[in-house]
């Protein structure tokens, strides 16, 4: 019996648009979604951000649902992205006879609503509405989403900062391999909030201009928001129900950098271990990989440690390396999900998306990122990296599907 896990559905909402096709278009054209802040009501309006270009009301209209706008933004964008993923996988959870789970990676949960509660409470407008807080915790969004779609066999929420989405995907894969589930909807979601915007700015790692991943002159990251979800399932289940197999989810590796709460170790220990565990689990060699979708946030620290780790793993044969954060911004808990989708698209379209805003190579590294869109790139295996605060490092491997 095959133990393969395959990807059968994708759904996304990001700064570069609603839906997989719109995102793919923007990636192919090299069009960024990072621009002037328009939706978040922050006093730091000068910071470029990768916002989803819809208000909460517009998102509600897209869902054509009669529910309160008062619910957190993460709820709406998750619904839209997961609806697309389920539609593309042709799965209706309420009608399915197989076991379906939902694992969401997030860092802020319902924080955008909690902020509004505090705002009223603290700044003396009428008593803050307590009901703004009831979906504050991260798991509440997952349960609201699960209840909406009728998913019951397993629900959980991963909160490992910037690697949350990737770890949700990793865990989903493990549950399928262990025989506990047949299908899992996995990925991540994080809306932009005053909390994260000010939090990251307080650490002085935001670029006041467009971020420059792997560039010598990089100054920091741009924050973004997104919801990115995949449907993964056992190959057996996909074949049995004649699902549309997009590619294989071949392996995943997770390691702890164990160096510092927010900075990565100079040698990129966590990154190196995560990548190496993944490659080992897949039973392939580094030279079999054609593309690394890097974490590549554009901070001085990450790009250096990740770059060093990549060179340690690949030696003289560094494959194509590209960060897609120049399109979407760093979407925190969603990043693992969003970038897994972009990795799958690279396989399906046999292409490499340009690493935007690159002009000067880093002195410490021998390789440079791919700075233009490449077609017919011969992509068979893509490694997707997500490294978070707390030292959580996760890599995922997606591969061209070989039918039995």
């Amino acid at each position, binding site marked *: 019996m095959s133990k393969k896990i395959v990807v059968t559905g994708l759904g996304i909402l990001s700064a570069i648009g609603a839906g997989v096709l719109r995102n793919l278009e923007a990636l192919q054209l090299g069009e960024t979604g990072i621009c002037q802040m328009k939706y978040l009501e922050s006093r730091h309006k000068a910071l470029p951000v990768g916002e989803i270009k819809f208000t909460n009301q517009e998102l509600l209209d897209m869902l054509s649902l009669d529910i309160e706008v008062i619910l957190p933004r993460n709820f709406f964008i998750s619904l839209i992205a997961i609806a697309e993923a389920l539609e593309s996988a042709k799965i209706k959870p309420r009608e399915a006879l197989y076991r379906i789970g939902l694992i969401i990676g997030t860092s802020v949960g319902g924080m955008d609503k909690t902020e509004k509660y505090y705002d009223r409470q*603290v700044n003396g407008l009428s008593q803050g509405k307590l009901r703004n807080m*009831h979906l504050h915790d991260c798991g509440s969004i997952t349960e609201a989403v699960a209840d909406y779609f009728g998913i019951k066999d397993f*629900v959980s929420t991963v*909160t490992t900062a910037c690697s949350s989405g990737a770890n949700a995907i990793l*865990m989903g894969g493990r549950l399928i391999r262990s025989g506990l589930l047949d299908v899992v909807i996995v990925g991540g979601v994080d809306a932009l909030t005053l*909390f994260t915007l000010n939090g990251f700015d*307080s650490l002085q790692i935001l670029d006041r201009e467009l971020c420059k991943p792997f560039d010598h002159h990089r100054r920091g990251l741009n924050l973004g928001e997104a919801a990115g979800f995949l449907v993964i399932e056992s190959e057996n289940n996909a074949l049995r129900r004649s699902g549309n197999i997009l590619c294989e989810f071949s392996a995943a590796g997770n390691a702890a950098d*164990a160096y510092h709460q927010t900075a990565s170790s100079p040698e990129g220990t966590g990154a190196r271990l995560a990548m190496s565990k993944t490659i080992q689990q897949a039973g392939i060699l580094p030279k079999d990989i054609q593309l690394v979708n890097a974490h590549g946030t554009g901070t001085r620290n990450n790009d250096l440690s990740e770059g060093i780790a990549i060179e340690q793993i690949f030696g003289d044969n560094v494959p194509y390396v590209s960060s897609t954060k120049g399109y979407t911004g760093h979407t925190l808990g969603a990043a693992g999900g969003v970038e897994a989708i972009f990795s799958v698209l690279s396989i399906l379209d046999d292409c490499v998306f340009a690493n935007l805003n690159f002009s000067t190579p880093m002195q410490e590294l021998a390789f440079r990122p791919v700075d233009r869109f490449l077609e017919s790139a011969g992509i068979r295996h893509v490694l997707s990296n997500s490294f978070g605060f*707390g030292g959580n490092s996760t890599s995922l491997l997606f591969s061209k599907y070989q039918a039995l």
Partner: protein
Amino acid sequence: MKVNVFINGVGLIAPIDLDGSDCKLFNREDIVFLKCIEPEYKIYLQPNITRRMSRILKMGMWAAIDCVKKSGIEMPEAIIVGTGLGCIEDSQKFLQAITESFEQMRPPTAFIHSIHNTISGQIALYFRCHGYNSTYSHRGFSFESAMVDAITLIEEQEITDVLIGGLDEITEPYVECGNAEMLYGHKEYLIGEGATFLMLSSVENAGSLCKVLGMQMIYFPAKSQLEVALCLFLQEMEISLFELDLLVVGFVGDSEVDRLLSEVLNTVLPVAIPMVRYKQACGEYHTASAFGLALAASILFRQQIPRFFEMGNILNRQNKVIDYSLIINQYRNKNFSFILLSKC
């Protein structure tokens, strides 16, 4: 389960000392709650370090280190934590600062410490453990998710020792969130807090407290579905209800909230099985089931029930061997879990 899993150590900070009989009750105008009996942190952590730590982080670190020590190993191979609300005190500090100052004052330390995986990250840092590391924040499944993750990790990767933990802390914002969730309708319904760490291991040793035979999480079941789930679980575990020696159940003490589970247990387990209601000792919080598991493991190991539980005195006098213990948790009638343990 495909491999043997044992609990080889427990580190615990709770409102009860498991050797004693007193629970630390705390009063506020509107609610009564259970506050932890805190240890001497300096036994494991230098004061100059703990000074900068939030309370939940201190509790988590201490319990984790204590657990590893008691397991008799140098360091775990993986660290997985469950926490319902994480480091909410620091979240509140940061939120308050940015709101009051109109986004001018942004204390970076509060932001960094507010991130949910701070605890699992700091434990990894302390032990320089580069192994698998994750954090789950999913209400009454936070700890169970960590445990399922650990068990499947042991099965798949032939790892020996995985440190898992469940912790949550009562703070002002926690109470507010709880109020927002409209939890506290009843006086008997105590909220609590705690930090519980356990070492799951594929290898039995002299210090092993008990064996984990299986576990299951059930989400948002109707009554009939929960009945079926429990029956199937016992069937899969090949254990009849007559073999169960002890039930360790997470009733919260509110008859309305407890009704569903109570009726299901009466239906599926109609015989009189001795029962310990663990939330009388630890209170209700997202990761209370971790305490329930630690309590059950401790009972199986010592073959003694803490004096605090009335039922305990009766059972201890009877001197019957406790071979099998079933832990059942429910959180807000949406998150249910079963864990079956056996004596080593």
